């Protein structure tokens, strides 16, 4: 039983990180109908920037909590700037182009960001400093660390904040209007370009937070870390119903749980036919199943075809 609880905890922590990254995919998709494949790389930039800022400040003798906050702030600012620039340079000029064109630029941007980071931070792995004291709690025989508790809490708070923003504010209403129909929204006085830019900036700030979390949890930062993470988060977004905020959260958490429980139990359940090396595969099995039986995702509503 303690094993089962431990796997659930592992899955929740992993899942809340996936959820944060998935939000970035889903927000951009909701507004532009574009899959921003460079989003994983923005997460990576956030992690590496936070790493440099935090270790730099610690080296100057700044206390850890302050350094961690500064790290998050600098990372968020940089990611927001990158997100904004990417949209202006790579996506806006192609707004009217066939769907394939922005998809290809997205992949191009991701390669550029990855190589840029490799040149700035080098090929080596960076050991992320411990941000909170290494404290462990015992939950029914399972072990959970303070950092894991904070990760889940922070992710939940951030997501709640985002929901409030989208559902209760003027900006949120403008975002929803743009997602519904950009042309009509424009006619109603919504500055669509500004909303699109803001969506990218907001998603990139979430990416910075996710980058910090992923690096703090696995104590590793590397220029290549965004690729797989981005792919998983994209899967999570599709699983929940891409374009749907609640869907991205549900999909993220679910994906984390599936991975943990799958890797933990599949070997015993199939008598060793499948092993834990299929950890990354379960997610895609489930994704295929969902797409076959519920193409709009678990939470996604029917997406009306634009006339």
């Amino acid at each position: 039983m303690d094993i089962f609880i431990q796997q659930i905890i592992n899955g929740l922590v992993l899942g809340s990180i996936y959820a944060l990254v998935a939000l970035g995919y889903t927000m951009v998709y909701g507004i532009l109908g574009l899959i921003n494949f460079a989003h994983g790389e923005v997460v990576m930039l956030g992690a590496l920037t936070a790493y440099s800022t935090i270790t730099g400040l610690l080296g100057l003798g700044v206390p850890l909590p302050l350094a961690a906050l500064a790290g998050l702030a600098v990372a968020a600012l940089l990611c927001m700037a990158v997100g904004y620039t990417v949209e202006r340079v790579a996506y806006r000029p192609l707004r009217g182009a066939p769907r394939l064109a922005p998809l290809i630029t997205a992949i191009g941007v991701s390669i550029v960001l990855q190589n840029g980071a490799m040149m700035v931070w080098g090929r080596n792995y960076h050991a992320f400093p411990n941000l909170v004291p290494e404290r462990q709690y015992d939950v029914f025989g399972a072990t959970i660390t303070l950092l894991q508790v904070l990760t889940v809490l922070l992710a939940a708070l951030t997501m709640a904040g985002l929901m409030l923003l989208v559902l209760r504010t003027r900006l949120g209403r403008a975002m929803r209007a743009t997602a519904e129909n950009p042309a009509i929204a424009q006619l109603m006085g919504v500055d669509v370009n500004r909303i699109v830019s803001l969506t990218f900036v907001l998603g990139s700030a979430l990416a910075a937070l996710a980058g910090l979390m992923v690096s703090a949890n696995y104590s590793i930062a590397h220029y290549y870390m965004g690729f797989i993470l981005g792919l998983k988060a994209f899967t999570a977004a599709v699983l929940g119903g891409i374009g749907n905020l609640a869907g991205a959260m549900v999909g993220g958490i679910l994906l984390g749980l599936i991975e943990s429980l799958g890797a933990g139990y599949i070997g015993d359940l199939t008598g060793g036919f499948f092993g834990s090396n299929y950890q990354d595969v379960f997610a895609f099995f489930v994704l295929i199943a969902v797409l076959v039986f519920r193409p709009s995702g678990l939470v996604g509503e029917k997406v009306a075809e634009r006339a």
Partner: protein
Amino acid sequence: MTKTCPARPAYPHPLASAAPLALLIAAALAGCGNKEEPKPAATPATAPAVAPTITVRIGHVGPLTGPQAHLGKDNEDGALLAIDDLNAQGIEIGGAKAKFELLSEDDQADPKQGTIVAQKLVDAKVNGIVGHLNSGTTIPASKIYFDAGIPQVSGSATNPKYTQQGFNTAFRVMTNDVQQGLVLGEYGVKKLGAKKIALVDDRTAYGQGLADEVEKSIKANGGEVVAREFTNDKATDFKAILTKIKSKKPDLIVYAGMDAQAGPLMKQLRELGIKSNFLTGDGGCTPEFMKLAGEAAEGQMCSLPGVPLDKMPGGPAFVNKFKVKFNTDIQLYAPYVYDATMVLADAMKRAGSADPAKYLPEVAKTDYQGVTARIAFDAKGDLKSGPISLYKYAGGKLQFVETVGGGAGGSGGDAPVPAKGDGQK
């Protein structure tokens, strides 16, 4: 595309990254790998005025991008240093002054990419190959080099299959995994007194091959393998498989894979409250492992083929030379790749020709005192003497413990590579 991207700043300012502008500029420059530039070769110090010149082109392959790029770059640096030394020595092959050039390719540690760049090097008519880094890329590529009759010396591919295919072009200057697995299993059971052992590998040709050999050795020595779990060479989350291992209560966990996974794995197993000892092979026996595992690594052990660098006649000098040239510490295999390159040049010298068909028989007859060992090959192309050394991660450094097998002795002393003091890089 010949990778010529030397722009990696050795010590980026920690805050340099804070300026978005710097990053955007860097990103804009990222296309530099596309330029077809020859590798900068050191100009020969003394050139005889009249001798004719031939150009000897050595191909090198390793992952220069992707998760193992730090090890690939380290290998490339080893080969570059050898090329520079050869050019500085002003070697003559068959009466002609030889100018060595390195053609470096990136295989991303991906078997598919490995065969593509192997074919590319064959088409470029290189005289010899040093590499690849991973067993998973070396084995499929070795068929291509064999078909083209080009000698290949790997400095780091340890899977036994590489030399068991019967290719007379395949050599390695490193102990293979049969020898290493034997030592790891025996050491775990006999010296560390572990009865219940859990094995984790990364399902690459290297990790899987080594773990299989360790498992055989554990059983042969009377130990029990209580869990066999797998991950992959890009993973960062190991909590799920470690939780499963925790329930089996092993005395020892053996990991077969690279440092980028071994480090976080070590840290996460302590976070889950697992108290077992940890043992890993050469892939995890690096300063990078200690950096990533932090305090969790303290007191744990790993093995490396060969004897420590400072026990070798040319070892300390090599460490210095490397540091001076590249302003960075050796990661892992650079000295082996250096030797691999030297073995090729040595065979060319003795054959009086850089023509692969002419000097290939001489490679098999190699008896060369390299930086890492006295290199002589058996009938298959493996090193004749294969000692394995064990190290302990202690006090933020790799401390040499003892050497087993291969007729090599020695005790006490330090790591083959100096540990990075502050982990900042």
